[in-house]
């Protein structure tokens, strides 16, 4: 191993972990919705894209940075999630599991076509990025750079994970959600309003996509075509982490981030997008319960 590689390795690892947290966050929303409602919303990446545009426009119009505008972003995406649920997804609640997954996937696919082209229509196909006064700030520790924006993004993603876990364990609604995941029929017999649980989960999933989009808008850039890219990332991470554990999903995201940056370093940047997909296929084939998930019977 040559000197250059040895020097680049720690930096690479750090970037991988920081980006991986974003992957984890993108997958949290998808995983929450899929876990509770069995809706496979493949338009999740498009929701993330809209979240990214929301923070871009809030920043360009009013000069409010993506971190400060997070509450507004969450509000906007929750509203969009609410509309999508009431308008479209509620019609598929009553299907049996297999058809529900299939039909929501198909509908999500149509939805992603619509949202992507609406985005081109309203906001053009250009790449949009956000550059704030703190964008270039970075700390250096032992020769490894820690860009402020990426550190803050990591922190936000981590806080989302903790908040989600606390919410699901400590609050009544959270417990109702977990009960619904276990067995929706039993939950409904216990007086839990399953429809409301579905609605709350779907809206929360959209809000999480909004947060992820905000972080992406400042770490990378946004354009109308980014949706499928992020949906695929989220799907890969969801399978990597295994269903049912949000911490597992988050770790799966970091795993993907690290694997990608290692690939970029060792094989070449062009192949960093492939490694996750290959990993994904291998796991689907050999460990369908997920790399970190437990075997369910």
């Amino acid at each position, binding site marked *: 191993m040559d000197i250059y590689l040895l020097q680049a390795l720690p930096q690479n690892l750090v970037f991988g972990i920081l980006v991986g947290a974003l992957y984890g966050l993108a997958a949290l929303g998808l995983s929450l919705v899929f876990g509770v409602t069995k809706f*496979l919303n493949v338009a999740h990446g498009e929701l993330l894209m809209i979240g990214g545009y929301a923070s871009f426009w809030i920043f360009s119009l009013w000069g409010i940075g993506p971190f400060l505008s997070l509450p507004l972003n969450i509000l906007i995406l929750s509203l969009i999630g609410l509309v999508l649920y009431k308008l*479209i997804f509620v*019609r*598929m609640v009553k299907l049996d599991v*297999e058809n529900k*997954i*299939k*039909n929501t*996937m*198909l*509908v999500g*696919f*149509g*939805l*992603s*076509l*619509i949202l*992507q*082209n*609406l985005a*081109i*229509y309203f906001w053009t196909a250009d790449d949009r990025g956000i550059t704030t006064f703190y964008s270039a700030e970075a700390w250096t520790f032992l020769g490894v750079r820690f860009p402020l924006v990426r550190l803050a993004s990591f922190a936000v993603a981590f806080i989302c994970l903790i908040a989600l876990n606390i919410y699901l364990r400590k609050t009544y609604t959270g417990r109702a959600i977990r009960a619904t995941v276990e067995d929706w029929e039993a939950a409904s017999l216990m007086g839990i309003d399953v429809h409301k649980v579905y609605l709350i989960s779907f809206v929360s999933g959209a809000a999480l996509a909004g947060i992820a989009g905000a972080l992406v808008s400042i770490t990378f850039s946004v354009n109308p075509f980014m949706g*499928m890219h992020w949906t*695929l990332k989220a*799907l*890969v991470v969801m*399978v990597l982490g295994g269903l049912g554990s949000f911490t597992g999903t988050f770790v799966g995201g970091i795993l993907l981030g690290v694997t990608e940056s290692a690939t970029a370093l060792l094989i070449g940047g*062009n*192949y960093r*997008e*492939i490694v996750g*997909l*290959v990993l*994904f*296929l291998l796991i*689907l*084939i050999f460990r*369908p319960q997920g790399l970190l998930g437990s075997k369910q019977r």
Partner: protein
Amino acid sequence: MRILKISSIVLVIVLLASLPFVTDRDNLINLVILIFLYITLASSWNILGGYTGQISLGHAAFFGLGSLVTRLLWTGGSPLFWSLLAGSSVAVLFALLIGIPAFRLKGVYFSIGTLALAQILNITVGNVFPVISSLPVDMLATYQLLPRYFLFLAIAIITIASSYLLVNSRLGLGIMAVREEEDAAESLGVSAIRHKLLALTLSAFFTGLAGGAFAYYHVSYYYQFPFTPVWSFDALTMVFIGGVGTIIGPIIGAVFFVLLREYLALNLGEYHLIVFGVLFILVVLFLPGGLVEAWGKIRKFFGKQRSLKKTEQTPQPGG
């Protein structure tokens, strides 16, 4: 009735075959070629997606492989027939390679798995062949539209005929039995995996063939272009709008898709995809049988009206 059906099919084929001799408008010929290509794509997707219920999101992989191999061999000097055959064979080989493990996964995992696979190929080909493929000068000099037209016509007919023969055979019954209730089919001695693999093989073969014809037809394009996910998504959209799991559905869907797309592209530009997205969602939610089902409903409605009138007019015996 049967004779009427067969003769009308023959008539349609004869009319289509004589089209290039009655018109010299190249844009019309090109439009019909496009329709043939999309009919082939939709029909071959339907063999797998419609009859086995395995929704593939990765048919771009087979289309791309067919076009890549055919293009490389054909422009390298091999005869067209063997280039096409090699292209579709590579698509089949690849389909089996992924199919054998993928069919161990149920339903949606197959869909996402095929999407992942197609994206792997898409990115890899973009990295390995990041250039435009243009026909060599001598091939360009002898380029004619007519043989392309008949190649596409032949491939579309072969694909439709094969789906028809398959569906009306014992194997076809097995395939549909697996779609309806896999466990029940297995218990009656129908091997689910073998039937799914058969459908996948046929589906990939014809998609690869369409890719090969695409490579023979286009003067220049990016090697990566046939691998882009839009080919998978278009096939899926056409089949669902037309009528999934029927012979005529993908044909209607393809004609409707191409004509509406051309019309909307003229009037709306790129935003025609919004219309298709809305249409697609409406079909999935409210009309799972697509246009075929809509047509059936309309016919039934008018049929009922007519039979109602008839019963009103005929005097009731003893009444």
